[in-house]
């Protein structure tokens, strides 16, 4: 069983499929995320593939401070992803609210809504930083032997 678990962990680390979700970013972070998927950076080296549907994705890459408008959608997309799943917050806004912190219409960071596994700061975060963040996330998962965060229930 232990061997089987090892193989599964290995496979998970080698094949993170991502889903890109804009949770109210100013769009600069999204442009950088898209840039990091171009042949220039070639994330397929790490097995990363961009998927269009939450059902196929393992990693939810979010950018932006979660506006009130998008909060329910974010939770819904997160819940549509099959276990095990991870969330990466890209950009200062996604980490803490950034320049929008304290605004009446945002909820200051992804982790106020869903559990986040990795934070990538920067305004905007550069493609190299994003790739570095994802690779570090995978390394930390290997260390903690796959503890997937419990899914949160949608409130309100």
């Amino acid at each position, binding site marked *: 069983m232990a061997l089987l678990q090892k193989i599964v962990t290995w*496979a998970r680390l080698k094949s993170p499929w991502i889903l890109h979700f804009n949770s109210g970013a100013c769009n600069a972070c999204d442009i950088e995320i898209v840039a990091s998927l171009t042949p220039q950076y070639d994330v397929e080296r790490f097995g990363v593939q961009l998927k269009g549907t939450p059902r196929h994705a393992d990693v939810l890459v979010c950018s932006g401070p979660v506006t009130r408008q998008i909060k329910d959608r974010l939770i819904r997309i997160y819940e549509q992803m099959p276990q095990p799943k991870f969330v990466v917050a890209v950009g200062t806004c996604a980490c803490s609210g950034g320049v929008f912190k304290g605004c009446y219409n945002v909820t200051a960071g992804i982790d106020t809504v869903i559990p986040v596994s990795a934070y990538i700061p920067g305004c905007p975060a550069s493609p190299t930083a994003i790739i570095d963040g994802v690779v570090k996330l995978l390394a930390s998962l290997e260390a903690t032997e796959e503890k997937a965060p419990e899914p949160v229930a949608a409130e309100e």
Partner: protein
Amino acid sequence: MHWSSILWALFQILIFPGLLFLVALALAAEFVDRKLYARLQNRLGPPWFQPLADLIKLLAKQEVVPDLADKFMFVVTPMFALTAAVTASFYIPIWSHQALCSFPGDVIVVLYLLTIPTITFFLGGWYSRSVYSMIGAARSIMQLFAYEIPLFLAILAPALLAGTWSLSGMSLFYAHRPLLSLLNLLGLAIALVALLGKLERVPFDAPEAETEIVAGSFTEYSGRLLALFRLAIDVEMVVGASLLAAVFLPFGMDFGPVAGFGLYLAKILAVISMLSLMRTLFARLRLDQMINFCWQIAAPLAFVQLMADLVAKGTIARGVMIP
């Protein structure tokens, strides 16, 4: 039947050259395809174990069955897709002229077995009851009607010339008359294009166009079921390539199993490389463009191929042309 013969049959079906061998070959084919695609785009591309890692990861993932979906059909269609694709391989001669099972008429059976995965994409997408998967399902069945005619014509024309409806018989016929298989080059080109449509790859990937309709029929599929579908497509790619190799490139099957097997790998590698090359060169066609192309260009060309084979058959029968 003796125990040993039953065990031998089981070994052939499950391990070699059956399921396990085909799965390994399919994963290798996916790797070759992705690596070539990446290299042609000036990228490094995925490591060699990438398809295997994807498969294991998907197998170990939770599978979600949507509330609205028809549970039974949703779960059963991926299995049918894989089964049909694997079964088709049993009738295709690989390294000798004799396929694992063969009977007169098996070329028709193989063609229909290769149609089943497309039907399951349709059914799976339709019973997912999601908007995107329903659009994808409708598109894949629409494409089916477009590429199926040229494909059937292109594969049945050589069969007509060979005067047999069995793939093993066809490869025997052409192996002894290599010049005659030059006549079928047009058919090979058409079959390659039709195979692209069958595998729903660029430029015929409108059914799963991820930039418009998320992932087409597979939008709601996750975990093990998605893994089965992906595996079915890979196996279909290998089986399709083997079919083209057996029908259009039937040389070198007389040199014994080892050389024959090496040549077989080389042949399907060539076919798969052609498919990747086309994937790199072209952009997605709209559905109407695809159907127009298939009906107005590919199907008439396939008819030309058919006529050429008929004429050749007539002249051979009268002794005008001795191959």
